[in-house]
Protein backbone atom coordinates (compact mmCIF):
# COMPACT_ATOMS: atom_id res chain seq x y z
CA UNK A 1 0.00 0.00 0.00
CA UNK A 2 0.94 3.68 0.53
CA UNK A 3 -1.08 6.75 -0.25
CA UNK A 4 -0.26 9.61 -2.57
CA UNK A 5 -1.65 13.11 -2.50
CA UNK A 6 -0.89 16.10 -4.67
CA UNK A 7 -2.49 19.52 -4.87
CA UNK A 8 -1.86 22.38 -7.26
CA UNK A 9 -3.91 25.54 -6.84
CA UNK A 10 -4.62 27.59 -9.94
CA UNK A 11 -6.40 30.45 -8.19
CA UNK A 12 -3.78 32.70 -6.52
CA UNK A 13 -6.06 33.45 -3.56
CA UNK A 14 -6.02 29.74 -2.66
CA UNK A 15 -2.23 29.66 -2.22
CA UNK A 16 -2.60 30.77 1.40
CA UNK A 17 -4.86 27.78 2.03
CA UNK A 18 -2.72 25.14 0.28
CA UNK A 19 -1.83 23.24 3.46
CA UNK A 20 -5.26 23.54 5.01
CA UNK A 21 -6.90 22.10 1.85
CA UNK A 22 -4.36 19.26 1.82
CA UNK A 23 -4.92 18.06 5.41
CA UNK A 24 -8.09 16.03 4.78
CA UNK A 25 -6.43 14.59 1.67
CA UNK A 26 -3.51 13.26 3.71
CA UNK A 27 -5.69 12.09 6.62
CA UNK A 28 -7.85 10.25 4.07
CA UNK A 29 -4.82 8.15 3.13
CA UNK A 30 -4.12 7.01 6.71
CA UNK A 31 -5.32 3.43 6.11
CA UNK A 32 -3.11 3.15 3.04
CA UNK A 33 -0.08 4.48 4.90
CA UNK A 34 -0.16 4.56 8.70
CA UNK A 35 3.55 4.29 9.52
CA UNK A 36 5.11 7.49 8.11
CA UNK A 37 4.11 10.61 6.24
CA UNK A 38 5.80 13.40 4.38
CA UNK A 39 5.14 16.55 2.45
CA UNK A 40 7.06 18.64 -0.04
CA UNK A 41 5.74 22.12 -0.69
CA UNK A 42 6.93 24.42 -3.44
CA UNK A 43 7.15 28.06 -2.44
CA UNK A 44 8.20 31.19 -4.34
CA UNK A 45 11.86 30.60 -5.35
CA UNK A 46 14.68 32.27 -3.45
CA UNK A 47 16.51 35.08 -5.25
CA UNK A 48 19.73 34.65 -7.18
CA UNK A 49 22.21 32.13 -5.84
CA UNK A 50 20.38 31.70 -2.55
CA UNK A 51 19.45 28.11 -1.72
CA UNK A 52 17.79 26.25 1.13
CA UNK A 53 18.04 22.82 2.68
CA UNK A 54 15.35 20.94 4.58
CA UNK A 55 17.18 19.24 7.44
CA UNK A 56 16.05 16.64 9.97
CA UNK A 57 17.60 16.73 13.44
CA UNK A 58 15.96 13.37 14.14
CA UNK A 59 15.60 12.36 17.72
CA UNK A 60 19.21 11.54 18.50
CA UNK A 61 20.60 14.96 17.63
CA UNK A 62 18.27 16.76 19.98
CA UNK A 63 15.06 16.57 18.00
CA UNK A 64 12.63 19.34 18.75
CA UNK A 65 15.20 21.10 20.95
CA UNK A 66 17.99 21.16 18.41
CA UNK A 67 19.77 24.51 18.47
CA UNK A 68 19.25 25.63 14.88
CA UNK A 69 20.34 29.20 15.61
CA UNK A 70 23.73 27.95 16.81
CA UNK A 71 24.07 25.84 13.67
CA UNK A 72 23.17 28.77 11.45
CA UNK A 73 25.65 31.05 13.27
CA UNK A 74 28.49 28.51 12.95
CA UNK A 75 27.74 28.02 9.26
CA UNK A 76 27.73 31.77 8.74
CA UNK A 77 31.01 32.17 10.59
CA UNK A 78 32.60 29.45 8.46
CA UNK A 79 31.22 30.28 5.01
CA UNK A 80 29.98 33.90 5.34
CA UNK A 81 26.83 32.95 3.49
CA UNK A 82 24.10 35.03 5.17
CA UNK A 83 22.56 31.90 6.68
CA UNK A 84 19.19 31.91 8.37
CA UNK A 85 17.00 29.12 9.63
CA UNK A 86 13.35 28.46 10.29
CA UNK A 87 12.63 25.58 12.66
CA UNK A 88 9.51 23.41 12.71
CA UNK A 89 9.52 20.48 15.11
CA UNK A 90 12.76 18.58 14.59
CA UNK A 91 13.17 19.97 11.06
CA UNK A 92 14.95 23.17 10.05
CA UNK A 93 14.81 25.00 6.74
CA UNK A 94 18.28 26.48 6.39
CA UNK A 95 18.74 29.20 3.75
CA UNK A 96 22.09 30.63 2.62
CA UNK A 97 24.05 32.29 -0.19
CA UNK A 98 26.40 29.46 -1.11
CA UNK A 99 26.50 26.40 -3.32
CA UNK A 100 24.43 23.50 -1.94
CA UNK A 101 27.40 21.11 -2.20
CA UNK A 102 29.64 23.33 -0.09
CA UNK A 103 27.07 23.68 2.69
CA UNK A 104 26.29 19.97 2.51
CA UNK A 105 29.97 19.11 2.98
CA UNK A 106 30.24 21.54 5.91
CA UNK A 107 27.19 19.98 7.57
CA UNK A 108 28.56 16.48 7.10
CA UNK A 109 31.75 17.49 8.88
CA UNK A 110 30.34 19.71 11.63
CA UNK A 111 26.89 18.27 12.25
CA UNK A 112 27.06 14.65 11.08
CA UNK A 113 23.90 13.60 12.90
CA UNK A 114 21.74 15.86 10.71
CA UNK A 115 20.07 14.49 7.62
CA UNK A 116 19.42 16.66 4.59
CA UNK A 117 16.06 15.79 3.02
CA UNK A 118 15.89 18.35 0.22
CA UNK A 119 17.79 21.15 -1.48
CA UNK A 120 16.82 23.90 -3.85
CA UNK A 121 15.36 27.37 -4.27
CA UNK A 122 11.72 26.42 -3.92
CA UNK A 123 11.22 23.10 -2.11
CA UNK A 124 10.56 22.66 1.62
CA UNK A 125 10.30 19.07 2.79
CA UNK A 126 9.10 17.46 6.00
CA UNK A 127 8.86 13.74 6.66
CA UNK A 128 8.83 11.53 9.71
CA UNK A 129 7.47 8.34 11.15
CA UNK A 130 4.02 8.37 12.72
CA UNK A 131 0.46 8.54 11.46
CA UNK A 132 -0.35 11.20 8.86
CA UNK A 133 -2.29 13.16 11.49
CA UNK A 134 0.66 13.09 13.91
CA UNK A 135 3.18 14.12 11.28
CA UNK A 136 0.89 16.88 9.95
CA UNK A 137 0.48 18.23 13.47
CA UNK A 138 4.21 17.99 14.26
CA UNK A 139 5.17 20.31 11.39
CA UNK A 140 2.01 22.39 11.14
CA UNK A 141 1.15 21.28 7.59
CA UNK A 142 -2.21 23.06 7.81
CA UNK A 143 -0.45 26.47 7.87
CA UNK A 144 1.61 25.86 4.74
CA UNK A 145 1.12 28.08 1.73
CA UNK A 146 2.44 27.81 -1.80
CA UNK A 147 1.39 26.90 -5.31
CA UNK A 148 1.62 23.12 -5.17
CA UNK A 149 2.64 20.23 -2.98
CA UNK A 150 3.37 16.53 -3.04
CA UNK A 151 2.48 14.34 -0.07
CA UNK A 152 2.70 10.71 0.92
CA UNK A 153 1.56 8.28 3.58
CA UNK A 154 3.66 5.15 3.88
CA UNK A 155 3.03 1.50 4.60
CA UNK A 156 6.56 0.19 4.36
CA UNK A 157 7.26 -2.91 2.29
CA UNK A 158 10.72 -2.38 0.79
CA UNK A 159 12.82 -0.94 3.60
CA UNK A 160 12.67 -0.04 7.28
CA UNK A 161 10.34 2.51 8.87
CA UNK A 162 12.61 5.50 9.48
CA UNK A 163 12.26 9.23 8.70
CA UNK A 164 14.79 9.11 5.85
CA UNK A 165 12.97 6.21 4.19
CA UNK A 166 9.66 8.05 4.31
CA UNK A 167 8.58 9.87 1.16
CA UNK A 168 8.91 12.27 -0.62
CA UNK A 169 12.39 11.42 -1.84
CA UNK A 170 14.48 14.10 -3.49
CA UNK A 171 17.54 14.24 -5.69
CA UNK A 172 19.49 17.22 -6.94
CA UNK A 173 17.67 20.50 -6.44
CA UNK A 174 13.93 21.15 -6.39
CA UNK A 175 12.84 17.70 -7.53
CA UNK A 176 10.83 15.27 -5.43
CA UNK A 177 8.96 12.04 -5.96
CA UNK A 178 6.47 9.94 -4.03
CA UNK A 179 5.69 6.33 -4.85
CA UNK A 180 2.91 3.86 -4.28
CA UNK A 181 4.12 0.42 -5.25
CA UNK A 182 7.40 -1.46 -5.30
CA UNK A 183 10.23 -1.73 -7.80
CA UNK A 184 11.79 -5.05 -8.67
CA UNK A 185 15.06 -3.68 -10.07
CA UNK A 186 16.26 -0.95 -7.67
CA UNK A 187 19.63 -2.63 -7.25
CA UNK A 188 20.13 -2.73 -11.01
CA UNK A 189 19.36 0.99 -11.14
CA UNK A 190 21.85 1.64 -8.34
CA UNK A 191 24.55 -0.26 -10.22
CA UNK A 192 23.73 1.67 -13.38
CA UNK A 193 23.94 5.05 -11.60
CA UNK A 194 26.96 4.37 -9.37
CA UNK A 195 29.53 4.92 -12.18
CA UNK A 196 27.93 8.36 -12.75
CA UNK A 197 29.08 9.28 -9.24
CA UNK A 198 25.53 9.13 -7.91
CA UNK A 199 25.33 8.18 -4.25
CA UNK A 200 22.37 6.90 -2.27
CA UNK A 201 21.28 7.85 1.24
CA UNK A 202 19.12 4.77 1.86
CA UNK A 203 18.41 1.25 0.63
CA UNK A 204 14.93 2.28 -0.45
CA UNK A 205 13.64 1.36 -3.93
CA UNK A 206 11.93 4.71 -4.42
CA UNK A 207 15.19 6.54 -3.87
CA UNK A 208 16.63 4.63 -6.85
CA UNK A 209 13.77 5.80 -9.08
CA UNK A 210 14.09 9.37 -7.82
CA UNK A 211 17.82 9.52 -8.48
CA UNK A 212 17.41 7.92 -11.91
CA UNK A 213 14.82 10.47 -13.05
CA UNK A 214 16.69 13.44 -11.56
CA UNK A 215 19.87 12.22 -13.29
CA UNK A 216 18.03 12.23 -16.63
CA UNK A 217 16.72 15.74 -15.98
CA UNK A 218 20.21 16.91 -15.06
CA UNK A 219 21.55 15.35 -18.25
CA UNK A 220 19.20 17.62 -20.17
CA UNK A 221 16.08 15.50 -20.70
CA UNK A 222 12.78 17.33 -20.64
CA UNK A 223 10.47 15.95 -17.95
CA UNK A 224 8.44 14.05 -20.57
CA UNK A 225 11.58 12.45 -22.05
CA UNK A 226 12.86 11.50 -18.60
CA UNK A 227 9.55 9.89 -17.72
CA UNK A 228 9.51 8.00 -21.02
CA UNK A 229 12.94 6.60 -20.13
CA UNK A 230 11.52 5.77 -16.72
CA UNK A 231 8.92 3.52 -18.34
CA UNK A 232 11.75 1.66 -20.10
CA UNK A 233 14.10 1.34 -17.12
CA UNK A 234 11.95 1.07 -13.99
CA UNK A 235 10.47 -2.37 -13.50
CA UNK A 236 7.73 -3.03 -10.99
CA UNK A 237 4.54 -1.51 -9.71
CA UNK A 238 4.27 2.20 -9.40
CA UNK A 239 2.18 5.26 -9.33
CA UNK A 240 4.70 8.12 -9.14
CA UNK A 241 3.81 11.70 -8.36
CA UNK A 242 6.63 14.16 -8.92
CA UNK A 243 7.09 17.82 -8.13
CA UNK A 244 9.31 20.52 -9.62
CA UNK A 245 9.07 24.28 -8.91
CA UNK A 246 6.70 24.66 -11.85
CA UNK A 247 5.00 21.29 -12.33
CA UNK A 248 3.32 18.27 -10.88
CA UNK A 249 3.71 15.10 -12.93
CA UNK A 250 2.05 11.70 -12.59
CA UNK A 251 2.74 8.33 -14.17
CA UNK A 252 1.37 4.85 -13.55
CA UNK A 253 2.96 1.58 -14.58
CA UNK A 254 1.54 -0.09 -17.72
CA UNK A 255 -0.43 -2.58 -15.61
CA UNK A 256 -1.99 0.18 -13.47
CA UNK A 257 -1.28 -1.94 -10.41
CA UNK A 258 -1.56 1.04 -8.08
CA UNK A 259 -4.50 3.41 -8.08
CA UNK A 260 -4.78 7.13 -8.78
CA UNK A 261 -7.69 9.53 -9.13
CA UNK A 262 -7.65 13.16 -10.23
CA UNK A 263 -10.19 15.90 -9.53
CA UNK A 264 -9.84 19.10 -11.50
CA UNK A 265 -11.76 22.36 -11.19
CA UNK A 266 -11.08 25.92 -12.34
CA UNK A 267 -9.44 26.46 -8.93
CA UNK A 268 -7.22 23.39 -8.46
CA UNK A 269 -5.93 20.02 -9.60
CA UNK A 270 -5.97 17.41 -6.84
CA UNK A 271 -4.42 13.97 -7.15
CA UNK A 272 -4.78 11.07 -4.74
CA UNK A 273 -4.58 7.32 -4.58
CA UNK A 274 -8.30 7.18 -3.92
CA UNK A 275 -11.34 9.41 -4.11
CA UNK A 276 -11.61 9.21 -0.30
CA UNK A 277 -8.90 11.86 -0.18
CA UNK A 278 -10.60 14.16 -2.66
CA UNK A 279 -14.10 13.95 -1.20
CA UNK A 280 -13.72 16.95 1.11
CA UNK A 281 -12.23 19.44 -1.34
CA UNK A 282 -14.39 22.49 -2.01
CA UNK A 283 -16.49 22.18 -5.16
CA UNK A 284 -15.44 18.57 -5.75
CA UNK A 285 -19.04 17.63 -6.57
CA UNK A 286 -18.70 19.60 -9.78
CA UNK A 287 -15.06 18.69 -10.44
CA UNK A 288 -13.93 16.73 -13.46
CA UNK A 289 -13.01 13.44 -11.78
CA UNK A 290 -11.03 10.89 -13.77
CA UNK A 291 -8.65 8.00 -13.47
CA UNK A 292 -5.25 8.59 -15.12
CA UNK A 293 -4.50 5.95 -17.73
CA UNK A 294 -1.56 3.56 -17.32
CA UNK A 295 1.72 4.37 -19.09
CA UNK A 296 0.55 7.93 -19.83
CA UNK A 297 2.24 11.11 -18.64
CA UNK A 298 0.19 13.73 -16.87
CA UNK A 299 1.86 17.07 -16.27
CA UNK A 300 0.16 20.03 -14.61
CA UNK A 301 1.81 23.47 -14.66
CA UNK A 302 1.78 25.61 -11.56
Amino acid at each position, binding site marked *: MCGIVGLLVKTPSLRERLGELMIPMMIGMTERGPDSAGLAVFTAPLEGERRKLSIDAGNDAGGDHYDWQALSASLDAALHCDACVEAKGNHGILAFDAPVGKVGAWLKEHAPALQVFSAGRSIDLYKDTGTPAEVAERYGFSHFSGTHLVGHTRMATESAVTPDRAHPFTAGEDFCLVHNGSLSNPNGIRRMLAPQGIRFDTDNDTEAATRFLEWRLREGDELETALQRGFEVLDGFYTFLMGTPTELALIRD*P*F*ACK*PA*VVAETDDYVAIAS*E*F*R*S*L*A*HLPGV*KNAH*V*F*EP*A*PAEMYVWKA
Partner: protein
Amino acid sequence: MESVKFDLEQIALRMVNQYLHQEAPAKEGLSVLIESPNGAHAIAAGLDAPIDVVIEGHAGYYAAGMNQQAKVTINGSAGPGVAENMMSGSVHVKGFASNAAGATAQGGLLVIDGDAGLRCAISLKGADVVVGGSVGSFSAFMAQAGNLVVLGDAGEALGDSLYEARIFVRGAVKSLGSDCEQKPMGEEDRTILLDLLARAGHADVDPDSFRLYGSARTLYNFHVDNAGAY
Protein backbone atom coordinates in the same frame (compact mmCIF):
# COMPACT_ATOMS: atom_id res chain seq x y z
CA MET B 1 -42.95 0.97 -0.75
CA GLU B 2 -40.64 1.63 2.18
CA SER B 3 -37.67 3.85 1.62
CA VAL B 4 -34.77 4.76 3.86
CA LYS B 5 -31.91 7.24 3.55
CA PHE B 6 -28.41 7.13 5.05
CA ASP B 7 -25.79 9.86 5.00
CA LEU B 8 -22.32 8.38 5.45
CA GLU B 9 -21.15 11.64 7.01
CA GLN B 10 -23.66 10.99 9.80
CA ILE B 11 -23.60 7.22 10.21
CA ALA B 12 -20.81 4.66 9.99
CA LEU B 13 -20.75 2.56 6.83
CA ARG B 14 -20.60 -0.59 8.94
CA MET B 15 -23.99 0.27 10.44
CA VAL B 16 -25.45 0.81 6.99
CA ASN B 17 -24.07 -2.45 5.62
CA GLN B 18 -25.30 -4.31 8.71
CA TYR B 19 -28.76 -2.86 8.13
CA LEU B 20 -28.64 -3.94 4.49
CA HIS B 21 -27.58 -7.45 5.50
CA GLN B 22 -29.80 -7.99 8.53
CA GLU B 23 -32.93 -5.82 8.26
CA ALA B 24 -33.35 -5.27 4.53
CA PRO B 25 -34.06 -8.88 3.49
CA ALA B 26 -37.38 -8.79 5.40
CA LYS B 27 -38.46 -5.69 3.48
CA GLU B 28 -38.99 -6.76 -0.08
CA GLY B 29 -38.97 -3.83 -2.49
CA LEU B 30 -37.17 -1.61 0.00
CA SER B 31 -35.53 1.42 -1.53
CA VAL B 32 -32.31 2.67 0.08
CA LEU B 33 -30.48 5.91 -0.66
CA ILE B 34 -26.85 6.24 0.48
CA GLU B 35 -25.54 9.81 0.45
CA SER B 36 -21.98 11.12 0.84
CA PRO B 37 -20.29 7.83 -0.09
CA ASN B 38 -17.04 9.85 -0.41
CA GLY B 39 -15.14 6.94 -1.91
CA ALA B 40 -15.65 4.59 1.07
CA HIS B 41 -14.81 0.93 0.53
CA ALA B 42 -17.27 -1.97 0.26
CA ILE B 43 -20.44 0.11 0.20
CA ALA B 44 -23.46 -2.20 -0.19
CA ALA B 45 -21.21 -5.24 -0.49
CA GLY B 46 -22.63 -8.66 0.26
CA LEU B 47 -26.31 -7.84 -0.30
CA ASP B 48 -28.74 -10.72 -0.65
CA ALA B 49 -32.22 -9.23 -0.97
CA PRO B 50 -34.47 -7.91 -3.76
CA ILE B 51 -34.01 -4.28 -2.80
CA ASP B 52 -33.06 -1.05 -4.59
CA VAL B 53 -29.92 0.75 -3.45
CA VAL B 54 -28.81 4.10 -4.85
CA ILE B 55 -25.33 5.41 -3.98
CA GLU B 56 -25.33 9.15 -4.55
CA GLY B 57 -21.70 9.96 -5.42
CA HIS B 58 -18.34 8.27 -5.93
CA ALA B 59 -17.79 4.83 -4.40
CA GLY B 60 -14.44 3.28 -3.42
CA TYR B 61 -13.15 -0.29 -3.67
CA TYR B 62 -15.49 -3.29 -3.98
CA ALA B 63 -18.81 -1.42 -4.14
CA ALA B 64 -21.73 -3.86 -4.41
CA GLY B 65 -19.31 -6.79 -4.34
CA MET B 66 -20.84 -10.28 -4.12
CA ASN B 67 -24.26 -8.85 -4.90
CA GLN B 68 -27.25 -11.17 -4.97
CA GLN B 69 -30.73 -10.04 -6.03
CA ALA B 70 -30.29 -6.35 -5.28
CA LYS B 71 -30.40 -3.55 -7.83
CA VAL B 72 -27.56 -1.15 -7.00
CA THR B 73 -27.10 2.16 -8.81
CA ILE B 74 -23.99 4.31 -8.33
CA ASN B 75 -24.55 7.92 -9.37
CA GLY B 76 -20.85 8.54 -9.68
CA SER B 77 -17.72 6.53 -10.33
CA ALA B 78 -16.71 3.24 -8.78
CA GLY B 79 -13.29 2.20 -7.46
CA PRO B 80 -11.55 -1.11 -8.15
CA GLY B 81 -13.56 -4.32 -8.02
CA VAL B 82 -17.09 -2.97 -8.38
CA ALA B 83 -19.61 -5.86 -8.40
CA GLU B 84 -16.78 -8.36 -8.05
CA ASN B 85 -18.14 -11.87 -7.70
CA MET B 86 -21.73 -10.73 -8.27
CA MET B 87 -24.12 -13.69 -8.21
CA SER B 88 -27.37 -12.09 -9.38
CA GLY B 89 -29.21 -8.78 -9.48
CA SER B 90 -27.75 -5.74 -11.18
CA VAL B 91 -25.21 -2.98 -10.61
CA HIS B 92 -25.28 0.21 -12.66
CA VAL B 93 -22.34 2.64 -12.51
CA LYS B 94 -23.31 5.98 -14.06
CA GLY B 95 -19.72 7.26 -14.19
CA PHE B 96 -16.48 5.38 -14.84
CA ALA B 97 -15.26 2.25 -13.09
CA SER B 98 -11.69 1.50 -12.05
CA ASN B 99 -9.81 -1.78 -12.49
CA ALA B 100 -11.28 -5.27 -12.21
CA ALA B 101 -14.92 -4.27 -12.59
CA GLY B 102 -17.13 -7.35 -12.45
CA ALA B 103 -14.18 -9.62 -11.66
CA THR B 104 -15.19 -13.29 -11.30
CA ALA B 105 -18.89 -12.35 -11.41
CA GLN B 106 -21.07 -15.42 -11.74
CA GLY B 107 -24.47 -13.91 -12.54
CA GLY B 108 -26.45 -10.69 -12.83
CA LEU B 109 -25.83 -7.61 -14.94
CA LEU B 110 -23.13 -4.96 -14.47
CA VAL B 111 -23.65 -1.80 -16.53
CA ILE B 112 -20.96 0.89 -16.64
CA ASP B 113 -21.92 4.03 -18.55
CA GLY B 114 -18.38 5.45 -18.73
CA ASP B 115 -15.03 3.75 -19.24
CA ALA B 116 -13.86 0.74 -17.27
CA GLY B 117 -10.22 0.36 -16.25
CA LEU B 118 -7.90 -2.58 -16.76
CA ARG B 119 -8.88 -6.20 -16.21
CA CYS B 120 -12.61 -5.53 -16.61
CA ALA B 121 -14.56 -8.81 -16.30
CA ILE B 122 -11.37 -10.71 -15.45
CA SER B 123 -12.17 -14.36 -14.80
CA LEU B 124 -15.83 -13.73 -15.62
CA LYS B 125 -17.85 -16.76 -14.60
CA GLY B 126 -21.29 -16.17 -16.07
CA ALA B 127 -22.39 -12.58 -15.48
CA ASP B 128 -23.12 -9.99 -18.16
CA VAL B 129 -21.06 -6.80 -18.27
CA VAL B 130 -21.97 -3.89 -20.56
CA VAL B 131 -19.52 -0.97 -20.77
CA GLY B 132 -20.71 2.20 -22.50
CA GLY B 133 -17.18 3.52 -22.90
CA SER B 134 -13.89 1.70 -23.41
CA VAL B 135 -12.20 -1.03 -21.38
CA GLY B 136 -8.51 -1.16 -20.42
CA SER B 137 -5.95 -3.85 -21.08
CA PHE B 138 -6.33 -7.52 -20.06
CA SER B 139 -10.13 -7.34 -19.99
CA ALA B 140 -11.93 -10.68 -19.86
CA PHE B 141 -8.62 -12.35 -18.98
CA MET B 142 -9.33 -16.08 -18.42
CA ALA B 143 -13.08 -15.47 -18.64
CA GLN B 144 -14.99 -18.71 -18.32
CA ALA B 145 -18.63 -17.87 -19.06
CA GLY B 146 -20.86 -14.86 -19.56
CA ASN B 147 -20.82 -11.87 -21.88
CA LEU B 148 -18.76 -8.69 -22.04
CA VAL B 149 -20.15 -5.93 -24.28
CA VAL B 150 -17.94 -2.91 -24.99
CA LEU B 151 -19.40 0.03 -26.90
CA GLY B 152 -16.02 1.78 -27.10
CA ASP B 153 -12.53 0.40 -27.58
CA ALA B 154 -10.58 -2.37 -25.86
CA GLY B 155 -6.96 -2.19 -24.68
CA GLU B 156 -4.16 -4.72 -25.00
CA ALA B 157 -4.53 -8.48 -24.73
CA LEU B 158 -8.32 -8.65 -24.82
CA GLY B 159 -9.62 -12.06 -23.78
CA ASP B 160 -6.18 -13.45 -23.00
CA SER B 161 -6.25 -17.18 -22.14
CA LEU B 162 -10.00 -17.15 -22.59
CA TYR B 163 -11.90 -20.30 -21.70
CA GLU B 164 -15.39 -19.46 -22.89
CA ALA B 165 -17.52 -16.27 -22.72
CA ARG B 166 -18.47 -13.91 -25.51
CA ILE B 167 -16.80 -10.54 -25.98
CA PHE B 168 -18.62 -8.02 -28.17
CA VAL B 169 -16.65 -4.88 -29.09
CA ARG B 170 -17.89 -2.00 -31.21
CA GLY B 171 -14.70 0.07 -31.36
CA ALA B 172 -11.05 -0.77 -31.94
CA VAL B 173 -9.24 -3.60 -30.18
CA LYS B 174 -5.62 -2.73 -29.49
CA SER B 175 -4.58 -6.37 -29.40
CA LEU B 176 -6.08 -9.77 -28.76
CA GLY B 177 -4.68 -11.95 -26.02
CA SER B 178 -3.42 -15.46 -26.47
CA ASP B 179 -6.09 -17.85 -27.77
CA CYS B 180 -8.68 -15.10 -28.34
CA GLU B 181 -10.02 -14.76 -31.87
CA GLN B 182 -12.74 -13.02 -33.82
CA LYS B 183 -15.70 -15.24 -34.52
CA PRO B 184 -18.67 -14.95 -36.85
CA MET B 185 -21.72 -13.59 -35.03
CA GLY B 186 -24.48 -16.19 -35.16
CA GLU B 187 -28.17 -15.61 -34.58
CA GLU B 188 -27.93 -16.76 -30.95
CA ASP B 189 -25.04 -14.36 -30.28
CA ARG B 190 -26.93 -11.51 -31.92
CA THR B 191 -30.03 -12.18 -29.81
CA ILE B 192 -27.94 -12.12 -26.63
CA LEU B 193 -26.29 -8.87 -27.67
CA LEU B 194 -29.61 -7.24 -28.60
CA ASP B 195 -31.08 -8.16 -25.23
CA LEU B 196 -28.06 -6.89 -23.29
CA LEU B 197 -27.99 -3.59 -25.20
CA ALA B 198 -31.69 -3.08 -24.43
CA ARG B 199 -31.27 -3.92 -20.73
CA ALA B 200 -28.27 -1.61 -20.43
CA GLY B 201 -30.09 1.37 -21.93
CA HIS B 202 -28.42 1.15 -25.34
CA ALA B 203 -31.43 -0.03 -27.37
CA ASP B 204 -30.56 2.54 -30.02
CA VAL B 205 -27.18 0.94 -30.75
CA ASP B 206 -26.97 -1.30 -33.82
CA PRO B 207 -25.89 -4.84 -32.84
CA ASP B 208 -24.38 -5.30 -36.28
CA SER B 209 -21.80 -2.61 -35.48
CA PHE B 210 -20.12 -5.04 -33.06
CA ARG B 211 -17.55 -7.73 -33.64
CA LEU B 212 -17.62 -10.92 -31.60
CA TYR B 213 -14.53 -12.45 -30.00
CA GLY B 214 -14.24 -15.78 -28.30
CA SER B 215 -11.89 -18.59 -27.43
CA ALA B 216 -9.96 -20.44 -30.12
CA ARG B 217 -9.96 -23.31 -27.59
CA THR B 218 -6.37 -24.31 -28.29
CA LEU B 219 -4.98 -23.52 -24.83
CA TYR B 220 -7.26 -25.47 -22.57
CA ASN B 221 -8.03 -28.51 -24.70
CA PHE B 222 -5.68 -31.42 -24.62
CA HIS B 223 -3.92 -31.84 -27.95
CA VAL B 224 -2.55 -35.24 -28.81
CA ASP B 225 0.61 -33.71 -30.32
CA ASN B 226 1.51 -32.49 -26.83
CA ALA B 227 1.24 -35.96 -25.27
CA GLY B 228 5.03 -36.15 -24.99
CA ALA B 229 5.03 -33.21 -22.60
CA TYR B 230 3.17 -35.15 -19.93
